[in-house]
């Protein structure tokens, strides 16, 4: 790919989505656009840039933009934590007095897929168990980036985004189509709110949560910062609650306040309570 091609393609993306692609992300263009090149019968990204400069390339430009701006987040990302949560939420429901809410925090929620996935799961649990249906579930999504929060609040996703992680029956049941996009249905969105929040700031005003999802965030921190954030998360977690980290992340060696829960990698509880459950 020539520098001119890189400039052409990334300028189109910036103009259409505001998304900035840095020169060191050239690999992303290669990998994400490969299927588009193949479908269009184009031999290279340089050929794609030429095609986009020609008339009647509107659809192609839009498709390229969506391929390059699709966030790494996806619905029900990694699958297994949500299956763990599916088993955990009824347990927490039975352990809580009637009338109180189960509080769930999606920390670094990006464009909201994790928060909405949890809300879809809560709806599924409520449909299977009328008792659970009476339980209020509040989901807070926070992120440091205002732009992704705006997108999260809209709850409007591209065709590419909804095809990742969602079974088609869940898609048609929990979303409504708006032209080429899909909007999360109001009853799913109603459980979720989104706020700007820095994980390194004072988190005490958030209160305590029954469940915290903080996945694929700690990998960006150095060890002291990671330990500090884990400590703050432990403070926000109910004694019998669960913290979900990313598949490649661990709280081990980061102090004794969090301990792995049995049965699933990457799920942690507050140490004293987890020890009591083991006894």
């Amino acid at each position: 790919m020539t520098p001119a091609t890189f400039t052409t393609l990334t300028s189109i993306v910036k103009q259409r989505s505001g998304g900035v692609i840095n020169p060191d992300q050239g690999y992303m263009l290669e990998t994400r656009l490969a299927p588009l090149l193949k479908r269009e019968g184009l031999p290279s990204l340089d050929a794609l840039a030429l095609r986009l400069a020609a008339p009647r390339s509107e659809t192609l430009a839009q498709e390229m933009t969506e391929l390059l701006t699709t966030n790494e987040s996806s619905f029900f990302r990694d699958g297994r934590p949500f299956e763990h949560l599916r088993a955990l939420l009824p347990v927490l429901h039975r352990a809580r007095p009637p009338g109180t809410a189960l509080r769930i925090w999606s920390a670094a929620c990006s464009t909201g897929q994790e928060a909405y996935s949890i809300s879809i799961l809560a709806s599924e649990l409520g449909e299977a168990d009328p008792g659970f249906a009476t339980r209020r579930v509040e989901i807070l999504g926070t992120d440091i980036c205002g732009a992704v929060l705006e997108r999260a609040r809209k709850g409007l996703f591209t065709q590419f985004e909804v095809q990742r992680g969602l079974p088609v029956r869940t898609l048609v049941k929990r979303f409504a189509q708006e032209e080429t996009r899909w909007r999360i249905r109001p009853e799913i969105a109603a459980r979720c709110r989104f706020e700007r929040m820095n994980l390194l700031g004072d988190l005490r005003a958030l209160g305590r949560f029954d469940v915290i999802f903080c996945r694929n965030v700690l990998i960006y921190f150095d060890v002291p910062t990671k330990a500090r954030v884990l400590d703050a998360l432990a403070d926000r977690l109910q004694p019998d609650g669960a913290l979900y980290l990313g598949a490649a992340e661990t709280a081990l060696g980061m102090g004794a306040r969090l301990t792995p829960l049995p049965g699933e990698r990457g799920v942690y509880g507050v140490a004293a309570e987890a020890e009591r459950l083991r006894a």
Partner: protein
Amino acid sequence: MTGTVLVVDDSAVVCKLARHMLERHGFAVREAEHGGAALQACQEALPDLVLLDRNMPVLDGLGFLRALRAAHGPDRPAVVMCTTEAAQQRILEGLEAGADEYVMKPFDEVILLEKLARVGFAPA
């Protein structure tokens, strides 16, 4: 589990693209250019899975699905529709006719493999 996938699409480009993606992950691939040819192929040997376009000459995807269901009942292969027909109503029609999953074109390898995994065919 991989297996044999019958790719049914009147676009040679889509067939080639799907074949490339599937063979890379251990699937054996056969092709049919419309629903009629696909029924013929199923009579010769039932595939494990069908990747099915909707709008095709001779016999369209929904017609093929109904015929497949009538001929093989619950023992029919899994069917993933793969079509530009992305309207909610069209998707519901596909599911009603018996599709197990649904890919909206354009798609990429990640989406295709995930949908196949959903109907029980994880890549090698």
